[in-house]
């Protein structure tokens, strides 16, 4: 879970959290059932599939893409994806000339409405420290290498503004519909630490998972 040793054993943290919850419940400040709903929402309902649907539509529908690039918050709200940690969205488009990556150097700001909660590496020191200084080296950690002439743009999120990368539409996806396109859109491709899958790579991943 953490790359560091702790002065307190994990069981102590677990006990501390349990103690805190029992106090908050006793004081009427939280309802355990409401906590269960919050956890279920982010474990099972809100996640990168939301963002993938947005990207697939932007690839399929030129008018939607214009709306997304113009006012991402409103365009994403067309899907009903609104609320906490997605109040002020900005979409940035990857092209043959420009590759965008998103970070929160200070913390863990992330577009919850379209990507859910961030992975540990996004919140951990190496990514936050390095991506603004050596984005290509960080991309290599993810197994991605781009041509030298591609301009790298790194966007540092804030408590207010959250970014969604619109990845490049992969070759061989020209005839696909929105649902099939969405299956090509990975979480990392919407952070900029990956690329969208080609249809062949997506098939291979599905077969490997079966």
């Amino acid at each position, binding site marked *: 879970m953490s790359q560091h040793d702790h002065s307190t054993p994990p069981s102590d943290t*677990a006990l501390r959290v349990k103690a805190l*919850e029992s106090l908050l419940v006793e004081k009427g400040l*939280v309802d355990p059932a409401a906590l269960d709903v919050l*956890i279920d929402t982010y474990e099972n309902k809100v996640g990168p599939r939301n963002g993938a649907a947005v990207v697939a539509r932007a690839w399929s529908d030129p008018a939607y893409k214009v709306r997304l690039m113009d006012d991402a918050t409103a365009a994403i709200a067309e899907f009903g994806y609104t609320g906490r940690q997605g109040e002020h969205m900005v979409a940035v488009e990857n092209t043959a000339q420009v590759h965008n990556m998103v970070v929160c150097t200070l913390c863990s700001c992330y577009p919850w409405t379209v990507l859910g909660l961030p*992975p540990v*590496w996004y919140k951990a020191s190496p990514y936050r*420290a*390095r991506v603004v*200084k050596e984005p290509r080296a960080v991309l290599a950690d993810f197994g991605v290498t781009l041509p030298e002439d591609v301009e790298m743009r790194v966007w540092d999120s804030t408590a207010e503004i959250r970014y969604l990368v619109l990845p490049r539409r992969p070759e061989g996806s020209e005839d696909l519909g929105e649902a099939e396109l969405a299956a090509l859109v990975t979480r990392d491709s919407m952070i900029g630490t990956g690329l969208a899958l080609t249809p062949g790579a997506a098939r291979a991943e599905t077969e490997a998972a079966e």
Partner: protein
Amino acid sequence: MNGAHDMGGMDGFGPVEIEKNEPLFHAEWERRAFAMTVAMGAHGHWNIDVSRFMRENRDPLGYLEDSYYERWLYGLEVLLERNDLVTRDEIAARMRALAEDGS
């Protein structure tokens, strides 16, 4: 305010460690700490900027040693105490009581 959290451009942290098929939470207490923080935020006693500040306004070593949700827990405890909602002493007492119940 500068501090250990202001790490953009800092060298020495090593490679990005990527976990394949990473679960959203790595322990049950992380689920509860996450949900309590979000639920308490909705009461309006503080806003996102205040809660961020409380997580970051601390000794740098403690910040760096804590895991992500331990930082959330630390920040939540400070906020609860400052707003006269729950004190650290109450938490310590409840921990002792729960530990005795469980033994």
